[in-house]
């Protein structure tokens, strides 16, 4: 299915991007796996997504982006768990957040970004991931995908020109 922009992540960052794009008349699809914690700020947990849907955005609630295909430094399609057909767009936005929303996954020694395999900024030395002081800011919360100056996501060191990272998934 074709769109102008596919946004992966329907939380604070994804909705903010979507609202601007829908206002500008772009055809937007939002893949919103699970509810974002930011939803608790609203009277109705789906308020922002529902408003976007009323304005014509396609919202896939509970669907998961499983794999993004990259060719010649550009994303060409994203496949999701519930759809047989891939989602195709000119621009893609990665707004999947950090660990809670599965924007970043980890095992004992690695941290990775599951949809595009983007370069993740983290310390390979696991002992540096945590601060034993419970109240201190935890270093692992600074992990995130690497981007160039324009916010394009880096995959194997190369900037993907039609994939922009917004929100918590970034390493800043």
């Amino acid at each position, binding site marked *: 299915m074709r769109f102008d922009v596919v946004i992966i992540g329907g939380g604070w960052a994804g909705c903010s991007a979507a609202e601007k794009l829908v206002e500008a008349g772009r055809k937007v699809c939002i893949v919103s796996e699970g509810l974002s914690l930011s*939803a608790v700020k609203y009277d109705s947990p789906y308020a922002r997504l529902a408003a976007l849907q009323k304005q014509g955005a396609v919202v*896939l609630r509970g669907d998961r982006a499983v794999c993004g295909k990259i060719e010649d430094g550009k994303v060409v399609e994203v496949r999701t768990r519930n759809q047989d057909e891939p989602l195709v767009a000119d621009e893609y936005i990665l707004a999947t957040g950090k660990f809670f929303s599965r924007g970043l996954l980890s095992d004992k020694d690695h941290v990775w970004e599951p949809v595009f395999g983007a370069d993740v900024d983290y310390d390979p030395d696991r002992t540096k991931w945590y601060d034993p002081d419970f109240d201190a800011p935890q270093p692992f919360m600074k992990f995130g995908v690497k981007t160039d100056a324009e916010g394009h996501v880096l995959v194997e060191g190369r900037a993907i020109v039609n994939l922009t990272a917004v929100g918590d998934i970034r390493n800043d």
Partner: protein
Amino acid sequence: MTNLEQCLKCNLCTLVCPMMEVNPDYPGPKKAGPDGERYRLKDPAFFDYALKYCLNCKRCEVACPSDVRIGDMIQLARIKYGSQARRKGLTGLRDWTLANTDLVGSLASPFAPVVNEVLQLKPVKSVMDGMLGVDKHRTFPKYSKQKFVNWFRKQDQSAFDKFVSYFHGCYVNYNYPKQGQDLVKILNSAGYGVHLLEKEKCCGVALMSNGFAARAKKQGAVNLASIRKAADAGEPVLTTSSTCTFTMRDEYPDVLGLQNSDVRDNIMLATKWLYEKISSGEVKLKFRKDFRMKVVYHTACHMQKMGWQLYSIELLRMIPGLTLTVLDQNCCGISGTFGFKKENYGFSQKIGSKLFEDIRTNNPEYVATDCETCKWQIEMSTGIPVLNPIEILAEAIEL
């Protein structure tokens, strides 16, 4: 089997549970699902009968960021520990009657004109309310004089060289053949012949929710055997009910333990199949020029869980002359047979109130939805007629 250890206790499921909002006796998806499961694994005596309030809408699973199968866990617990909760006496008879859509439909449809009239009579409704516990406010879906399968037998499909199979479901067969007839007309005009499955039984969703899982499993096995035959003949199995589809694709393996991975992708809603065929150019439909209709689309809970509302919505958007508004994805509250029961009627209407309000504000000519029980609930509660997207499409094309 269950993945309760994935639950982080974030409570987002509690936030979206429609029953939780209106019924303080329901412990909510987190407590009823992963929290309760820990206790039930230790001792079945921890089974909480309040689990009967779960609508099985799967909204908890859609909201869960950790992919916990909360709804399945509750369904499985009800089947495993709650069978003794199956009610006895007249209420048991009511549950049995509501659950056996297939059998009751076969018995009722030869007497359709009489049955329809009788079920509308106030004294009959009062008796059913008082003795059986079927709420008197409910309007029963009318039985059809002619079953869909009897109509279909008279349709010559021999002229086609490409075929699809159609799982019509109980509602189309016993109550509302028009929906199936419309699909056959659309498919025929697109150049496809239609086959029915060799043997079709009720998908079993009403049996499962009323405590007759073993029967549901038997019927599911019959359906899957027929679906496999259709798949071997290279035919997809199309449906016009989101709940039947969801049950056969996901509840069969997840709740009933029926293996369907070989044919799961073969079972799909007709709207999805048509959308894909039209957008790839394989099917061309000729739309009427004078067609005008103002429609709002309601996403049924199981449609949302499958993530297929996209296809019905985009298919409707292809129709010239159709003004479409997509409603907020709220639950209508009926949840199949749940809302017919006197003890649940109040909850049912409270849950649906947000949706009814949303519909009334939009003031459409028709509401479109892929679920028949949503249709009954919306028609009864708002007075606005509800159509399946397939019926709207049939109306909009030149046949």
